[in-house]
């Protein structure tokens, strides 16, 4: 059975000017111990999917559909019940570790609190486990860091504290939402490598939300591409890199500059992502797609399997 099973999830926001469709009918699942990358540009809805199933959506959001964690429905669950999952089975690592940590509390307090509240641990037990976690994320001096405030640590160290917090009590799924975007390049590899080791040692399922395709390969086996609130393609790392069938996936791969000698102009995708208040009636990528035909302007392609592991939402997937 799938560990996490999301079916027909939609998230919309009601505004004075009308409604914004941030996530549109998204279905996917994650197996125990699996690593999934969710790739898309800003506004693609990739964070909204996971915020919705953690109950972290904004107040004016309307969430529809289903998300089952080990058979238990999460959507619509009251906060008190949701907290059992958020504190134990599910954890999230946010993009900016400075705003995600409480600036008034010492690192140690923030780490031990989780175990005391959610797992009923005594302070001593919690402290021992917290120090172990700090050791596991390779902080140089756990005893000392335990007494420090977030502002005393560098960005990379703060993100390690966030990861230590995420692994406390061994959750079954860690959602890392752009965990390296705010960090320097040298630290970026540290963090991905660390997440990989945690996955290997504990078999934790991982979701990496990112806009950076090259980063994905270090951690994830499967990739889910999102555009304008929909899944446009999903497949294994190999499939996406070598035989991507959706024009958007292909264009994004080409637009990412490789570390190679200057070869003139970069391949760019003309135009810009659609306004989520005024989505096109047909395929959302059609206005930017070189291969778009009449059918693409009027009807929305469904996600269709092209192999056991690869699905594409494009009318002309077989030709691509």
């Amino acid at each position: 059975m799938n560990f996490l099973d999301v079916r027909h999830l939609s998230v919309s926001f009601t505004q004075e000017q009308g409604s914004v469709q941030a996530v549109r009918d998204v279905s996917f699942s994650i197996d125990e111990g699996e690593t999934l990358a969710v790739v898309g540009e800003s506004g693609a809805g990739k964070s909204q999917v996971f915020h919705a199933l953690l109950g972290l959506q904004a107040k004016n959001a309307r969430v529809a559909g289903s998300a089952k964690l080990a058979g238990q429905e999460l959507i619509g669950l009251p906060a008190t019940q949701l907290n059992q999952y958020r504190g134990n089975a599910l954890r999230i690592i946010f993009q900016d570790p400075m705003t995600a940590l409480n600036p008034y509390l010492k690192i140690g307090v923030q780490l031990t609190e989780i175990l005391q509240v959610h797992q009923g641990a005594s302070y001593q037990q919690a402290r021992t486990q917290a120090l172990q976690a700090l050791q596991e994320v390779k902080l140089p001096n756990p005893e000392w860091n335990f007494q420090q405030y977030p502002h005393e640590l560098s960005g990379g160290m703060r993100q390690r504290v966030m990861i230590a917090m995420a692994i406390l009590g061994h959750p079954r799924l860690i959602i890392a939402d752009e965990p390296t975007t705010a960090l320097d390049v040298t630290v970026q590899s540290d963090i991905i490598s660390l997440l990989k080791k945690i996955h290997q040692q504990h078999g934790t399922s991982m979701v990496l939300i990112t806009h950076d395709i090259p980063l994905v390969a270090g951690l994830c086996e499967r990739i889910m591409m999102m555009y304008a609130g929909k899944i446009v393609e999903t497949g294994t790392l190999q499939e996406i890199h070598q035989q991507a069938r959706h024009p958007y996936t292909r264009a994004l791969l080409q637009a990412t500059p490789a570390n190679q000698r200057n070869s003139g102009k970069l391949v760019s995708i003309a135009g810009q992502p659609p306004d989520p208040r005024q989505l096109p009636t047909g395929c959302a990528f059609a206005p930017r797609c070189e291969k778009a035909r009449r059918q693409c302007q009027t009807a929305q392609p469904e996600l269709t399997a092209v192999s056991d592991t690869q699905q594409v939402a494009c009318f002309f997937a077989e030709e691509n």
Partner: protein
Amino acid sequence: MDLLQVEQLGVTFNHSFKALNQVSFNLRQGEVLGIVGESGSGKSTLARVIMRLQMPSEGDVKWRSDSLFAMDNKQQQAYRKQVQMIFQDPLDALNPRMTVAQIIAEPLRYLMPQLSRKQVRQKVAQVLTPMGLSESQLGRYPHEFSGGQCQRIGIARAMIVEPELLVCDEPVSALDVSIQAQIINLLLELKQQKGLSMLFISHDLSIVRHLCDRVLVLYKGEIVELAETESLYQSPQSDYTRRLLASIPLHNPLEERARIEAWGV
């Protein structure tokens, strides 16, 4: 001929923290010089000194052999016209209460006040097309545009006074991948067609390799390496540069996986 000579530049904050120390380099005419380093390495402080927004504690910066910090008002005015800047956060860098036309024309009001209204309008119209903007957008406000379009407006504002040097402080790091390539291509065009020189500050080493002629690596306020782009990427001389290059994610997924497996935390 060198456009800019940076000589033994030092900037000290709070009498103790050396943001820049003994930094010396020249920028050649028509050259794109990449400046890379991690946060806190002094990249933006260097840009601020060159824009005359920050006084150096030691050393000097010369524009065509004139010291930036010994200029009279007239020379300062001329310098501002020759050196323009584009910023990291494209929306933040535009005044939300001005229309696109006002934003793009603003440098002319201060730097070329002799122009008539008609001449200003003509200049604004001329600068739009190469930036991929249209006249129908002139009456709109910044919030009506996407990040990539705002960056185009920012570049149009910089280019309207026909500068010789463009200082770019992380100009694409806030943009989506598909839009980054558009802006990088635009900068490449400006370099090729107008012979524009650039200081290109970035932490994205793949983009720097693509765009820059030479690369300067800063670490804790000091230059650890300065070399032609290809020789720096192919045979880095300092340990820090090697570490920086080793941290670039690889395009080939199998190679990237192997790189992360081998990466020591």
